């Protein structure tokens, strides 16, 4: 066998493996995609060819499901979480990255350690606290919870990006006449922008998909999309077509964000120092 043939064979094997992986990952999504466009009779049959309908996407927004309100709640909660998390995390990350702080390592470890706490352990205290201060079933309450969830992650991630910015660049800017704030605005933020965007998108995805806390801490007004999915369990069984339509609505922003992230993630990762 020549070297060229060997190479071709190994390439073929690679392609087959990739196809298998893609297939395994995409089949459920494909199934949901089809189910969302089927009527409630077709949905129980494994038909590949059927008359597609948009009816499900209408139904989910009507009574008794009112998915619109949940979509709105999810959007608000996720956006506000990101809008608060990224500036705060950036400031924290900058300090951790650039200043000599007492107990810096310990603080970083503690921040990370909060992530290891199983959510179920703290959910009850949260419930009791929120009940006492009247935050149960409010979007503000959910934003607070989501902040607690995404902040450690955001701080660590953004710190990584800021660590990657060579300190000389900042020092040069200071000698050139900038104050610390100007350095952050003119040098650090633009250079860390891909990183901030990536972190923001990750936080958005986490907040958008958050299920457990929303399940316990909301019941009517502040219900989010993932909880809304549970509505489609009726006496007559699971309403798969509606469930799938709602699933697609949940996934859609993720697809779009995944596309953006792909571009910036690579850029963020490869943006190194310029000597």
């Amino acid at each position, binding site marked *: 066998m020549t070297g060229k043939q060997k190479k071709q064979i190994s390439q073929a094997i690679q392609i087959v493996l990739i196809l298998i992986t893609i297939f395994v990952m995409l089949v459920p999504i494909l199934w949901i995609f089809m189910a969302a466009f089927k009527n409630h009779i077709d949905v129980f049959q494994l038909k590949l060819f059927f008359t597609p309908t948009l009816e499900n996407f209408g139904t989910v927004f009507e009574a008794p499901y009112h998915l619109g309100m949940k979509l709105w709640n999810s959007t608000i909660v996720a956006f506000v979480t990101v809008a608060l998390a990224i500036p705060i995390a950036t400031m924290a990350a900058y300090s951790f990255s650039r200043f000599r702080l007492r107990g810096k390592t310990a603080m970083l470890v503690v921040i990370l350690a909060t992530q290891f706490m199983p959510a179920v352990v703290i959910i009850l205290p949260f419930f009791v606290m929120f009940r006492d201060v009247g935050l149960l079933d409010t979007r503000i309450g959910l934003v607070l919870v989501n902040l607690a969830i995404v902040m450690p992650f955001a701080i660590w991630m953004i710190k990584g990006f800021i660590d990657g910015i*060579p300190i*000389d*660049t900042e*020092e*040069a*800017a*200071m*000698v*050139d*006449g*900038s*104050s610390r704030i*100007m350095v952050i605005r*003119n*040098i650090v933020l*633009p*250079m860390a922008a891909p990183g901030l965007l990536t972190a923001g998108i990750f936080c958005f995805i986490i907040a958008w998909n958050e299920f457990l806390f929303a399940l316990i801490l909301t019941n009517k007004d502040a219900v989010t999309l993932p909880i809304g999915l549970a509505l489609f369990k009726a006496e007559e069984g699971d309403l798969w077509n509606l469930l799938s339509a709602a699933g697609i609505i949940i996934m859609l922003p993720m697809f779009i964000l995944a596309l953006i992230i792909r571009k910036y993630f690579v850029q963020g990762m490869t*943006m190194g*120092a*310029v*000597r």
Partner: protein
Amino acid sequence: MASVILKNLTKCWGDFIGVDNQSLDIQDHEFLVLLGPSGCGKTTTMRMIAGLEDPTDGEIWIGDRMVNDDLPKDRHVAMVFQNYGLYPHMTVFDNIAYPLRVRGTPKGEIEPRVKKAAGQVELIELLHRKPKALSGGQRQRVALARAIVRTPRVFLMDEPLSNLDAKLRVTMRAELKHLSRELKITTIYVTHDQIEAMTLADRIAVMKDGIIQQVGTPDEIYNDPASLFVAGFIGSPAMNLINGSVQDGYFVTTGGTKLVAVSVPDKPDVVLGVRADDMRISEEGEGDIDARIYAFEHTGEATLLTVQWGTQRVIVRGARHLRKEQGEIVSISLGSDHLYLFNPDTGKRIRG
């Protein structure tokens, strides 16, 4: 435009002493070159003057103000960083314009000044590029342009020409010399390049292990070194340092060869320093000492002979057209001026 005065300046990191209790007066308009081996504390000294490193002890004065507690931006110095410190997200133009912009230079003034600075470092065609798309030498010139675009009180230049090719280095050297004379800005300049140091400096400060060994004009440093270290460090090729002793008014090598008359009292252990240029080469038997050629090199404008003197090798500079073969015997003569004697234990000069 200001003097820079360092008073008992010290920088320690834990037990390690980077700069050790150094004082230095740099006059207004002076061009001072800091010279020293790698790791001797040159960059550290510059960074303390710029305000990027807090001194452990001591005072820094720029003009008539102690600047220890001033932020870098308030010290009005311009620095060329050893590793450039360019802004990767900005074009070359914006990099050079940045110090003007943050200091609120009027809009109309910025472009002509950036163009002028870029022209001085031959970068005009590259103004729209990002640093990532530049070669090392081009990046260094951007860093240089960013410093000379404004008129600071002090220039701090940390090996600003180290990455340029030989030809450009000579051009830039002349450019810098011209600029510093024209603008009359106090300049502190770090280099490893002897010729740069000799040509640019009003005064040279030779540093070693965080300590300034000698400060003086290039002439003093070259022709009147205060210590063994300075003697061996300055000059290319390095000064020949020959171990021996002084007996009956003569310097005698460790091998027992009586070399040359010296005017110091007898002493068992001394080092004789003599530069390659201060010896004459003649045919075998015609000079003071005969020696076998160990290696023969041309440098273009001169020739270099390494000869074996007992256990010691000595480099002698010969005329441009001298042609000798390895292994031949030549005769070397030492004049009695330009000989330097040192105490090998303290490293100090022994003066007659």
